[in-house]
């Protein structure tokens, strides 16, 4: 049956459409079944505006229709969780009456279409998710994926995306304190931009997106509405084909200056007790905010679109409801205090207008020029979206070669580098280790990220104790002795090989990074970037990743407080690697115990801590033991530095500890490598559950490690200006640390050129 054939029964709503053809449904990314569901909910055919409303609310992006059945398996509860998934951001209790709101969100598709603005508005969106709950943003991070930089188009995309993030975050005045970036061929036509934001507030001052109090006014604040991004939400729910170019006019432009004003005005209005409910207008704009607020409040919302501040003329109700113009919020206030509320926004130079009212009938009613254009029950619209349990089928063979998980940085590196490592592994007799180290440090996947993070203001707000470049970022909390540690981790190659194992490793590595920085892991947010959910292998990857995350989060006692899912990351039918990104937040009770990767002083001993036997797959119990050991050593101030071993293995981690840090120039190290006789694997191989530390108290450290069932090899000392590594009784490399640093620092600036 075609949509057209569906019975058209008018219910007094104007402009009922008698022309809903298959083509119209396709443009709205709705299936015939979904359409019938709409007709059933309404008891009649939808109007054009209603069809638009359903299409965005039921898009993959807003409804999570393919992922919800799996996400339910994540552990979301814990003593510290004040708000789990379901709100704009997750919230945890950090003591002292304070709470932290944090979340991560993808902006992959918009960033491919227009890298600068796409990334900028991604940052804007996640910041609004934080301050809409009443928290003041104090840190952001971002996780990025690009195709290899040898291609000019990938360089253009990276320049734009990094520039856009910098533009928005810097202008808004929030420090961008960390993140991660990784290059691989699968992201060439589909870069990933996952933006994380974190804010702080008093725990009894949390605001929710609820429309309550029948008769209360609904107020629109912020920037004016234009035709920006109409159907952004549905766009993010369909892959790019040949017509990506045709979809372009949808680009939204961000205005970080207005966002900053919006922040100050919202927090001021909240502080004055003028806000009953508040929700940002993100994906699906006015539609999503009004219907979600109504659904959460169990109320109806009537909007009069004539009142909506508009930047363009002649906008239709359809366009106004679906516009994704940025820097806008929807508020509910008490009728008696509305004038006061409006005055706060006007003081900050922002539009603030009453556009509707909370009603008792549970309907989202849209009026324009005296006519009703939509009348949809909020509950079913927000909560009864179709739910798909899509087919899950493991692939015939793993997506990538197992060898690559030993040297995961090689994926996306120049072919000659890959070849050099293959040669070394197969001809252990004649390996030029120095050459391998130069290649490793010179590969984009392991090189210094300074080119990126120096474009971000990472110090504003004067809280940054550890900025970009260490294992985790650390932000002190003024007025307390505490600090927050935070990190993003997404080891895509490991996930591509084995999604469940890769996800476990991702969570473990995030925890390890927090622990190495002196923090105690508390809670997790996550961004799940996947290919086309209609491909059974993609859904298998998804399901496996969710289970891997669940296992690890349970093991570490770190509940998931929220996240985001981005499907349809594919171009010309090629799915990206399954790319979960874990955002972990940890707490330091005493900021004085903060620890970084950098070696501190000549003469300090260097120790490698690892399990008694080396393993490829992670053992979560062993990992916990390692983290408990490190936490205890840091609390007792035994460690001068700690660095988790990940991409590039032992030697790369060692070099990173040597490179310049704040006022200390690069410093050398002389070590003897523990050997399993696996030649270059011993030096460069990636194995979980390993940490490189420096200390002045070797004996304490060694005996403590033994208590935890782990080995601590005393391998050498810090000092001089050479990196000297002995392996199997011979000097494997003896190199000038400054030369290595120049090489490592030069990679991205050279590839990115000019400027």
């Amino acid at each position, binding site marked *: 049956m075609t949509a057209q054939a569906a019975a058209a029964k008018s219910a007094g709503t104007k402009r009922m459409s008698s022309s809903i053809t298959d083509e119209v449904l396709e443009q709205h990314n709705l299936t015939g079944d979904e359409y019938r569901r709409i007709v059933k909910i309404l008891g009649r055919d939808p109007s054009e505006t209603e069809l638009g409303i359903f299409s965005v609310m039921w898009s993959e992006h807003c409804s999570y229709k393919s992922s919800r059945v799996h996400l339910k398996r994540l552990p979301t509860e814990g003593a510290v969780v004040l708000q789990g998934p379901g709100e704009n951001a997750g919230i945890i209790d950090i003591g002292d009456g304070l709470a932290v709101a944090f979340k991560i969100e993808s902006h992959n598709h918009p960033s491919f279409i227009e890298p600068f603005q796409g990334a900028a508005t991604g940052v804007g969106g996640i910041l609004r998710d934080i301050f809409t709950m009443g928290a003041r943003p104090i840190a952001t991070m971002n996780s990025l994926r690009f195709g290899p930089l040898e291609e000019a188009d990938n360089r253009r995309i990276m320049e734009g995306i990094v520039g856009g993030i910098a533009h928005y975050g810097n*202008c808004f005045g929030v420090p961008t304190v960390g993140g991660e970036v990784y290059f691989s061929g699968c992201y060439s036509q589909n870069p990933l931009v996952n933006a994380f934001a974190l804010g702080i507030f008093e725990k009894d001052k949390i605001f929710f997106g609820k429309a309550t109090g029948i008769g209360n006014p609904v107020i629109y604040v912020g920037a004016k509405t234009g035709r920006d991004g109409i159907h952004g939400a549905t766009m993010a729910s369909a892959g790019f084909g040949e017509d990506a170019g045709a979809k372009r006019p949808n680009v939204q432009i961000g205005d970080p200056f207005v966002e900053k004003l919006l922040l100050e005005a919202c927090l001021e209005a909240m502080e004055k007790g003028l806000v009953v409910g508040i929700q940002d207008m993100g994906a699906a704009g006015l539609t999503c905010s009004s219907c979600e607020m109504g659904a959460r409040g169990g109320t109806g919302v009537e909007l009069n679109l004539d009142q909506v501040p508009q930047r363009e003329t002649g906008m239709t109700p359809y366009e106004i409801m679906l516009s994704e113009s940025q820097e806008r919020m929807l508020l509910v206030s008490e009728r008696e205090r509305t004038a006061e509320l409006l005055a706060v926004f006007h003081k900050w130079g922002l539009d603030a207008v009453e556009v509707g009212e909370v009603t008792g009938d549970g309907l989202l009613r849209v009026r324009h020029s005296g006519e009703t254009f939509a009348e949809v029950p909020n509950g079913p619209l927000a909560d009864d979206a179709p739910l798909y349990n899509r087919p899950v089928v493991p692939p015939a063979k793993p997506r990538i070669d197992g060898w690559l998980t030993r040297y995961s940085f090689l994926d996306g590196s120049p072919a000659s580098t890959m070849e050099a490592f293959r040669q070394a592994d197969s001809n252990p007799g004649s390996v030029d280790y120095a050459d391998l180290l130069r290649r490793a440090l010179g590969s984009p996947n392991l090189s210094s990220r300074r080119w990126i993070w120096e474009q971000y203001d990472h110090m504003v707000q004067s809280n940054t104790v550890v900025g970009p470049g260490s294992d985790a970022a650390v932000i002190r909390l003024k007025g307390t002795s505490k600090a927050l540690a935070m990190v993003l981790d997404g080891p895509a190659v490991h996930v591509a090989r084995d999604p469940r194992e890769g996800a476990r490793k991702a969570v473990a590595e995030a925890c390890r990074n927090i622990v190495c920085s002196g923090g105690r892991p508390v809670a997790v947010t996550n961004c799940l970037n996947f290919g086309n959910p209609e491909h059974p292998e993609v859904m298998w990857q998804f399901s496996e990743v969710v289970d891997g995350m669940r296992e690890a989060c349970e093991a570490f006692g770190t509940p998931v407080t929220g996240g985001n899912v981005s499907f349809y990351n594919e171009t010309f039918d090629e799915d990206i690697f399954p790319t979960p990104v874990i955002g972990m937040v940890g707490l330091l009770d005493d900021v004085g115990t*903060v620890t970084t990767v950098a070696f501190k002083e000549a003469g300090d001993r260097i120790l490698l801590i690892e399990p008694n036997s080396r393993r490829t797959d992670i053992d979560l119990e062993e990992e916990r033991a390692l983290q408990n050991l490190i936490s205890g050593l840091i609390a007792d101030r035994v460690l001068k530095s700690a660095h988790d071993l990940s991409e590039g293995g032992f030697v790369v981690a060692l070099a990173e500890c040597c490179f310049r840090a704040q006022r200390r*120039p690069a410093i050398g190290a002389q070590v003897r490598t523990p050997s399993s006789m696996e030649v270059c694997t011993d030096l460069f191989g990636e194995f979980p559950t390993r940490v490189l530390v420096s200390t002045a108290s070797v004996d304490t450290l060694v005996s403590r490690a033994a208590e935890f069932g782990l080995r601590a090899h005393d391998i050498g000392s810090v000092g001089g200006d050479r990196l000297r590594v002995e392996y199997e009784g011979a000097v494997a490399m003896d190199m000038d640390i400054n030369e290595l640093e120049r090489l490592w620092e030069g990679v991205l600036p050279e590839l990115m050129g000019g400027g």
Partner: protein
Amino acid sequence: MKFGVVVFPGAYCDHDCYYAIQTVTGKPVEFIWHQETAVDGFDALVLPGGFSYGDYLRAGAIAKFSPIMRSVREFAQSGGLVIGICNGFQMLTESGMLPGALMKNAGTRYVCRYLNLRTETSATPFTGDIDKGRLLYIPIGHGDGNYTADEETLAKLEDDDRIAFRYVDRTGEPTAEANPNGSVSNIAGIVNEGRNVLGMMPHPDRSFEAILGSEDGRLIFESMVNALSRV
């Protein structure tokens, strides 16, 4: 002795300055909304960093029309201490209270990093406690810090000993590599003819506690307090 920090829409380092001055000097600090017109009772004014009006048009170009700026100018003319940090420096050049202009960084990108400054003169109320030639480790964070001025102005700045800070390398040399933004003659900060108005791109308000990477920024606020208590 009272400090005033002017609050412009978008110039968010107002809070950093407030906190830094309070922490370092223990003196009273108050915010002054940019729509105000009076600065009575203040001994020193701070034009903070940030992106006032989004840095749209040019950094500091719109802020200079705020009502408060007239009072700031009068305050300076009557000898009051005014320090403009980063965006505040841009407001000072835009409004003509300091000569020259701050253009887009030579690299065209925003740069945030710690670096070394050399104190070029102790003969200002902002550097009175700092030995000439002393290196300060203080971060920058800007996209438009490329100081430029015509030759005559530069010569005059030199002759009058009005260059307060230069970007230098670890050994104290003002090399091209140590220059983060292409600024002429590695200039990082200057004072006006009366020596009571300082504009500087680097942020002492981000480097006043060891835990933030450096305490050197304190010296500037402490010098101001000492200069004010001498009068």
